[in-house]
């Protein structure tokens, strides 16, 4: 969670990082919302963090939770499987959980320059937040008595309660004390552009498009006709007029949907019809809104165009023709033509014309800033015809969605800031993609959980303008969040990494052509760094050679592969001993002691585990420390070493490290030691010595070489200590010449420990479970070791040989003396 809460900072774009791939939902979102992160955080129940992720780019987080047109959802990869992740509804859940009075820490202005923003709608508010968070003062002028613009005035309460808008704005204002909001300050009336240009360093025009367009047919200015925006503004202003029984809404956009559903809720109305000039596949309204309108009883008529309106019987007759659709035009929409002879009348008491909005400002027109019903605005830098006067939102580029308006707010803020900071040629604005690297939801049902819409409440006659949709309950939100594929996260495979996957997806896209193929090919040919990480060779750079044709495989599911081990007469069920646990809580140590005995293995440590009924190999630093009760004593060799006198039957051994190997082996041979422990960690005898990290694997081949040179290969068994994690690691050391291995940190983790700064922490471990869990781990590791042996065609793990191994790196080849895969000999 280190993201700066400032979206226009392009350096925050992480889409080029080696392991980050902006997921389709984020790319589809005009403001680049970090959807995957906040969905992951919702699954994890981390609501404040989720809100941080949302609000970083979206000041209207609450509003969007209710009414965003959510272009992310159709882009969701799961949409083509069993249904998109319910991103919008999940967003709503965050603020519903946090509460309406949830506030973010304020970011105070620290710079002197001032910006005037006209219009406290989505575009203006977004820009105001960005500019204020950058440290500047903002005067935000709003023509109406309440801020919010179309979010407040254009969307009816049943879809978006007005207090949700107010909460968002209050949250922005409390977060950005540098914003001064001036209500009832319409441009040209109380506020003059020329004065603002004097008093402020930049002006941003975000006045919106709140004038409804007319139908453009005869009679469209009659008494029974109202435009959609005006209608919604009046309803949202609190009016509840009694309407005629039958209302016809003309248009097929979101305003039409809001208008028809609002009309349906007003007294007197019995029937609401929406007439749209194209077909059901072309209607621009969101499917979600269209469904809701239909569910509430609105009738949708397609392929109808009004050609004239006439007064009739105190109401109005809409003279209509049917339409026929042709080929798509330049704007991608299919052209339509009127079908001759298809005339009919649609009678009603009121026509609501929801056929588009326009921006109206006499003040701006007088300054020559208007271009028809929009402000002349350059998309390249959001500038207008006047220097340091910028424009954004519906007034600049025509009516659009809430989230598009916010995108324009961000973009305008970016260029305003560039102007404030004297950057003459800022890099072109692009939506920054960021990630909070949230872990994937570990939900066992993530593949199965079906999509669930937020509960649809519909039209309730006792409270017609009450919410039409409810929030998820916590469980549903958790489940719906679990459904996310998390396309943003790196995969579990280095080979099929997220970049590799996306590159294949890109090649398979329906619209992909030679230009894309060429780009993908060039990207693949580009230079890349050597992926090998620094450090010593590890077990991971060793592989086994399976039996195939030249050797017979052993059936690993069925045929026995022996793993019994004898160490200097000490019989063990498997070649795996246990160490560590000396500082573990008494209950854990006792449980481990029982498991060591029950699984037929032995324990290696300075002190015996409490009640240990299995062989104990004592680690000592000097002969005097030898305990007669130990089954074996293992002397840590420093310099010249003298093995202790053993009691009869007690085994004597040495612990050799990379630094002491030669001396230790010489001593072991001279004193006829019973066994030698090779300590690849260099710390055996200290608590959780394995935590030293990657062991020095070369110790084992070095030891074998020394003994072979002395003709003493069979003099004593070699026990490996260091870095063993799995049965495969063990099998590799057996193949290199060890007779057994010791698990230390791995056994601690198995018993329920967690890695802490100074050892293993058993605070969260269950003593009841510790024994069985360790036993299960030892069994698993032994079976893995056997499986490696069988795949190599061996029926006894001790028959593994160096020749069954290959190395995958030069450093492993050098350290282990094992030839690399693909090569005939070590060069």
């Amino acid at each position, binding site marked *: 969670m280190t993201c700066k809460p400032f979206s226009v900072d392009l350096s925050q774009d992480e889409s080029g990082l080696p392991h980050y791939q902006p997921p389709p939902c984020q790319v589809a979102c005009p403001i680049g919302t970090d959807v995957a992160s906040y969905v992951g955080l919702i699954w994890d129940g981390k609501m404040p963090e989720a809100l941080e992720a949302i609000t970083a780019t979206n000041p209207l987080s609450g509003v969007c939770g209710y009414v965003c047109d959510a272009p992310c959802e159709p882009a969701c990869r799961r949409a083509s499987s069993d249904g998109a992740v319910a991103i919008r509804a999940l967003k709503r859940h965050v603020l519903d959980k946090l509460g309406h009075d949830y506030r973010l820490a304020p970011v105070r202005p620290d710079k002197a320059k001032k910006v005037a923003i006209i219009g406290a709608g989505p575009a203006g508010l977004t820009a105001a937040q960005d500019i204020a968070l950058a440290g500047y003062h903002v005067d935000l002028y709003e023509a109406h008595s309440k801020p919010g613009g179309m979010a407040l005035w254009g969307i009816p309460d049943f879809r978006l309660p007005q207090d949700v808008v107010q909460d968002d704005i209050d949250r922005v204002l409390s977060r950005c004390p540098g914003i001064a909001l001036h209500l009832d300050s319409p441009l040209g009336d109380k506020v003059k552009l020329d004065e603002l240009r004097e008093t402020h360093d930049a002006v941003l025009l975000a006045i919106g498009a709140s004038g409804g367009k007319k139908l453009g047919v005869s009679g469209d200015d009659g008494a029974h006709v109202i435009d959609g925006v005006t209608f919604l503004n009046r309803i949202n202003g609190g009016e509840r007029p009694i309407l005629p029984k039958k209302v016809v809404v003309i248009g097929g956009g979101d305003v039409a949907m809001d208008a028809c559903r609002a009309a349906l809720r007003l007294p007197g109305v019995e029937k609401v019809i929406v007439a749209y000039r194209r077909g059901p596949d072309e209607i621009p309204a969101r499917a979600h809104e269209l469904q809701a309108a239909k569910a509430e009883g609105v009738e949708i008529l397609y392929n109808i165009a009004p050609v004239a309106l006439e007064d009739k019987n105190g109401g109005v007759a809409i003279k209509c023709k049917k339409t026929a659709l042709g080929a798509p035009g330049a704007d991608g929409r299919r052209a339509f033509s009127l079908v001759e002879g298809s005339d009919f009348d649609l009678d009603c008491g009121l026509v609501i014309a929801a056929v588009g909005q326009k921006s109206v400002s006499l003040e701006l027109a007088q300054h020559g800033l208007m271009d028809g019903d929009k402000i002349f605005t350059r998309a390249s830098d959001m500038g207008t015809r006047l220097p340091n006067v910028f424009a954004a939102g519906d007034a600049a580029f025509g009516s659009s969605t809430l989230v598009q308006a916010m995108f324009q707010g961000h973009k305008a803020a970016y260029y305003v800031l560039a102007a404030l900071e004297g950057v003459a040629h800022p890099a072109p604005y692009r939506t920054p993609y960021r990630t909070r690297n949230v872990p994937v939801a570990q939900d066992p049902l993530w593949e199965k959980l079906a999509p669930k819409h937020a509960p649809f409440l519909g039209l309730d006659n006792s409270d017609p303008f009450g919410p039409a949709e409810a929030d998820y309950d916590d469980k549903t939100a958790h489940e719906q969040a679990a459904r996310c594929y998390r396309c943003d996260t790196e995969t*579990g495979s280095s080979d099929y990494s997220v970049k590799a996957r996306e590159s294949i997806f890109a090649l398979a896209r329906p619209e992909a052509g030679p230009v894309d193929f*060429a780009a993908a090919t060039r990207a693949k040919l580009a230079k890349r760094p050597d992926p090998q990480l620094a450090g010593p060779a590890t077990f991971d750079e060793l592989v086994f050679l399976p039996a195939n044709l030249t050797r017979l495989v052993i059936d690993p599911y069925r045929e026995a592969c022996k793993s019994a081990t004898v160490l200097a007469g000490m019989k063990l069920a498997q070649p795996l001993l246990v160490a560590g646990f000396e500082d573990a809580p008494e209950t854990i140590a006792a449980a481990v002691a029982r498991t060591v005995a029950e699984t037929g293995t032995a324990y290696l440590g300075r002190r015996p585990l409490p009640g240990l009924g299995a062989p104990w190999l004592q680690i000592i630093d000097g002969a005097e420390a030898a305990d007669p009760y130990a089954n074996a004593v293992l002397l840590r060799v420093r310099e010249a070493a003298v093995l202790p006198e053993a009691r009869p039957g007690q085994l004597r051994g040495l612990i050799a490290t990379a630094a002491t190997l030669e001396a230790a082996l010489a001593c072991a041979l001279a004193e006829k030691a019973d066994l030698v422990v090779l300590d690849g960690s260099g710390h055996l005898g200290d608590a959780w010595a394995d935590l030293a990290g990657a062991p020095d694997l070369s110790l084992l081949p070095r030891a074998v070489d020394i003994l072979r040179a002395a003709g003493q290969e069979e003099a004593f068994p070699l026990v490996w200590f260091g870095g063993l994690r*799995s049965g495969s690691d063990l099998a590799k050391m057996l193949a290199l010449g060890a007779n057994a291995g010791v698990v230390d940190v791995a056994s601690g983790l198995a018993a329920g420990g967690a890695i802490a700064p100074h050892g293993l922490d058993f605070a969260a471990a269950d003593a009841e479970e510790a024994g069985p869990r360790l036993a299960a781990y030892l069994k698993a590791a032994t079976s893995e070791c056997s499986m490696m042996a069988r795949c190599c065609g061996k029926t006894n793990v001790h028959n593994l040989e160096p020749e069954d191994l290959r190395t995958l790196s*030069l450093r492993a080849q050098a350290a282990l003396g094992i030839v690399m895969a693909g090569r005939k000999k070590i060069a």
Partner: protein
Amino acid sequence: MVTLDLAQIPVRDANEALRAAAARGEDIEIVNPDARHHLGVGLVAPVTVKIRGSAGYFCAGLSHGARFEIESNVGWGVGDSLYAGSVVVGGNASAIAGVALRGGEIVIKGNTGSRAGQVMKAGTLLCCGNASFLAGYMMYGGRIIILGDSGERVGEDMSGGAIYVGGKVQSFGADAKLGEMTPEEDADIRAFLNKYGIAFEGEFQKIVNAGTKLRYGVNEPIARPLPYTVAEGTYWNAKVAEDIHAKAMIGRYRIRGYGAAKTVPHFNDIALKIDPERIQAASDALASVNLKTKLGDRSGAKPLELSMPVLIAPMSYGALSKSTKIALARASKLAGVVENTGEGGMLPEQRAEAGQLIYQCLSGRLGWNIHDMLKADCLEIYISQGAKPGLGGQLMAKKVTKELAAVRGIPEGIDLRSPSRHPDIMGADDLVIKVEEFREATGYKKPISIKMGAGRVRDDIKIAYKDGFDFVQLDGMQGSTGAASTEVLENMGIPTLAAIQEALDGLKEIDAGDDMPIVFMGGVKDGVDAVKALALGASAVAMGTAALIAGGCISCMQCHVGNCVVGIATQDPEHEERYKIDVQAKAIARYLEAVRWQIATLTKALGYTDFRQLSRKDLVALTPEAAAITGLPYDPDYFPVEHLLTEVA
């Protein structure tokens, strides 16, 4: 009645004459059989074949409907994969009598060797004398009747069917137990004996599966994989801890889908000596570069014809949903390449959709039969795969549905673990005879290939060459699978780059020339990787996972769970419904076209007109490891423009 004298004609001619006579409805008599192998294999007509003497290996194998009467003894594998019909042996039968029996009746009047009825699925195998050890080893269904004594470990790891022993049972196999015998069963056996005129008065002991090993005891908790990068940098990282915690819960190795997840030397570590800027979008390479190739005519069979040197890697119906197999088949046809059945048998829909189809024969002989062999365009003997060489296939119970079990001929709902080795391939010499059986059964018309995971490739490839395979499919450790032990995935086998190098080295050592093509697979992701493999010496490449990803796979690596979120690696109808065959088939086909574009464009950009002109000279190694493995010059600072300059100069 046609009489064939094996003293006069070779087996190949005899089998052809046999088929011709059978097609006319004539019965056949074979004289002087001299224990020749493969007598009557692949016969699919209801005629009678009398063998006057002894037959060798695989007598009556892969046949359907014929009645075989062998006067004397038979070698091993009598009635191999018999679908229906009968075989009566007057004397003794060697090992694996009735191996992979899929139906019909086999009667051995004398004794049988070891492993009688291994991996049989249905039908009746009667041994009138004694049966040696491991009778009914890994049988999935059907019945074995032994009138005499049975040897050690009878019914070892059987998962279905029943074994009736009239004599003494020396010992029970693992997971076998005595079962209840009903009077109806007893009557049915005696009716069967009467039908063949065999008198038996004794009582039977019935041996069935004890059900202790059919399923893994504990289910592994479902966990989405941590990003692979978690494992980098720190030794005791979160991935290691998670792995140990999981094993401490389940007490056994873990299982997942996909291939080796760790970073190993791979195609990205070698570079094409080509200036990326030369890759032009408006390339006309598709028209001017030859990508067509053939595979499989080394021994005169009808080769596979490929529009480019790319195949779909073998993946089973089972690991994958039927819908996915159909989409792959359709896409392969659209692209003019070859689809492969993988382990699970051939689906009729897959056969209908695929232009050319390779049919795989695996150790468990699941879904293996003569009819589908005849429908295939190529037969492939699977020895192992890159993801889990040394192990057989694994299919978790969730995916072993009724329909799937029927195609494979196995019981429903078991955690299916296929045998690791073929019942009748213990070594290179057995393999020769097996290949010969397949050639005899299909009239030498179909190419026969071998699929191997990469192990001791330098040696293994020589055996493949000497055993006469038409081509080899060789799979590096990055090759993916639907389910395998995580430890085997990461630690068993060598990388694809090393496999290519060793294979070519091995063939060079025996002066094999280039008459046995090798198809490489294991992490080939696009046309760029393909070109690198071809330049290193591959004859073609196969793509599996990449094709699945093109068709919607999101690389969550949960293939083994069976709930595949996109409907690929699942047999659950609700999940399979999520996979839109037509949409994904087109996506895969588009991806293959992009691969074609890349291979053609790169070949042209390197100045060639045929992909066969690509060579090692077109490559440099970017890492010391890749250089060491491939022997390519190590040039980490390789900069294509300099190369261009020297070229111009």
